[in-house]
């Protein structure tokens, strides 16, 4: 059965961003974190507390439902989403619709950054915050 990315143990996060670098590198062949599909955020004023946002791998995704052109649609896997770039009108409706605040926006390309549930970020997490889990 296919697997999805999950946050297994958030409190272990050391905020190294290795995960985001890995995602950006893998899917955009670039250096940095701003193109990562998952995000590690720090709270203002709370030392060392990180919030880890990953795509929830919805079967009936809010983001896709909000997409007016069908550019963002349920992935062939049956969970999570895929993007047909050519159809995207850069309206950001998908971003607003994801209640988990998990879908990210590529500021340069003006496109949503979808998670492929590929598991690369998991392999770079030194403290095993992230994991791949069976989709039920």
């Amino acid at each position, binding site marked *: 059965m296919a697997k999805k990315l999950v946050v297994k143990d958030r409190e272990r996060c050391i905020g190294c961003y290795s995960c985001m670098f890995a995602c950006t590198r893998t899917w955009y062949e670039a250096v940095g974190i*701003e193109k990562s599909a998952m995000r590690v955020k720090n709270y203002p004023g709370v030392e060392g507390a990180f919030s880890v946002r990953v795509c929830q791998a919805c079967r009936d995704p809010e983001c896709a439902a909000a997409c007016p052109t069908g550019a963002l649609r349920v992935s062939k896997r049956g969970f999570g989403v895929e993007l047909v770039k050519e159809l995207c009108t850069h309206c950001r409706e998908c971003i607003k619709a994801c209640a988990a605040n998990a879908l990210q926006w590529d500021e340069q390309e003006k496109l949503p950054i979808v998670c492929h549930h590929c598991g690369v970020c998991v392999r770079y997490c030194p403290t095993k915050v992230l994991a791949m889990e069976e989709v039920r």
Partner: protein
Amino acid sequence: MYRMLSVDLTSGKVEEKEVSELFRTFIGGTGVLTYLAMQEITKDLDPFSEKSPIYFAIGPLNGYFPSMSKTVAMFRSPLTGDLGESHAGGRLSLAMLSANVHVLRITGRAEKPVYLSIDDDSVKLVPCSSLWGRSALATERILREKEDHRKGKKSIVRIGPAGERLSPIAAVTVDSSRHFGRLGLGAIMGSKNLKAIVVSGSNCPELKDKRSYQSLYDRIFQELIGSENTYKYRDLGTAANVVPLSKIMGLPTRNFSQGFFEGAQGISGEYFADHVLAQQISCAHCPIGCIHMGVLRELFADPHMYKALKTSYDHELIYSLGSNVSVSKAENVLKLIHFVERQGWDAISIGVVLAWATEAFQRGFITLKETEGPALNFGDVETYLKVLENIALGKNEFYRDLEKGTYHCAKKYGGEDFAICFNKNEAPGYMTGPDAFVGYAVGVRHSHLDCAGYSVDQKYLGRSEDIEKEVRAMYEEAVWRVLTNSLVMCLFARGVYTPQKVVECLNAVGFDIDESKMNQIAHTVHGMKYSLKESLGFAFADLTLPKKLTSVYTSRGKMSEADFKKRIEPYQRLVEEDKSLASRAL
């Protein structure tokens, strides 16, 4: 393309300049900044004048490879008058790369307090009088919230009240508890009415040859997370040194009176980990996770009202606010660190000031008249907190003097023999023997990290000395570190990044370089640094060993002023070669 952003705080003018040629010649980081500083930092420049520049730089490997996570700052030190250089981690190097700023140069003076805001191409000076006076910690909280609308990760670089008061031992704090600590950069920001710098951006440079890059990246990453070389930094952190150092009489205790601290167990890395460690955190793009955050739970009202202070600790802080002032409880060390963090002093310097003041009081150089009440005793945390508070309040002339540094105080009140400074800079936390002390004296920034004399000492424990070899080992380390500081690498990754790996990494980012060329650049920049230092007044011949240190027992026994000089001379000869190399190259 490498880019320098210049901001003039007086006029508000912002200029961009391509500096790719400088990066090709000097690699980046400290190499590039040394060259730039040579053009602008001159003998007659007042560090607090409008013209006085502050530079920050990253190098070609920041962002590209893990644990290349530091930023270098350069300036004229208000503490020593010499070249000031300091390094910090946090998220700054990532933020600068994301904003496509490889060098940031700041000059001028704002009329009223401002913070410098950089978000991609938007560069602004934001008035912030209401932030003036706020602690270094509060300033970060406020700005992180205020600038929360930004897309990219922010790095927040700021001063506390110590910098505003122009204390020449004031630090600049970066994100969560990283610092440009040493040599007084905080005071220069203060003199410019520059409370903070907030940097972010969305630039993600494209990779050219991803396949080969990825395999090199993976090799390095695996070593960083799996090797012995980095394990100690993650596990107990540098605090692991405390007990072993005390055992070999290398842990400065009570103002460097001895190297054995009877209370070492109570401030050991193990004690901290077992009782106060909350978690480890990391700088951006570093999987090591060396930053140890301690939590101090304090009862503030009976019976069960608690507050919790979260603050980071490491060996240097445990020495300066622990053993060297005879504080033997981890919880008390955290209390002192927290106060120092809020004010924004360099923790090493302020600790050495406290230790000097205590000894000066005990020997009668300072009396109750100066302290207006408190009698200074080693180990007396409550009094130390009171003293720090009085300094923060600028209570009287004596307290205002204390934050001008140990050298200044000893000149004024006496007690120079036990003022533990090298070239006016307060000493770091090792008294392992002659190489540690010589290293503080000759190092480019008078830090234990310049040439790692403390580690050379430890290799020669119980062996007969070999001055020539020892000096050469320190010198070679110093030259190599010029290179790693040009990348800009975290020193904790030094066991993984061998010269050969560094060449591979540089090749991967488009540098046409091999080991011998790299070595040549390191020697050249090393020579440039000393030429610049000497033009600002530094002289090997003037270096002295604080008198007290000739009568104390180090890990390698007692040393004399002559032992000290015997090492300085050959070190200077090696540096002379680099200086002539540099003068030929420029």
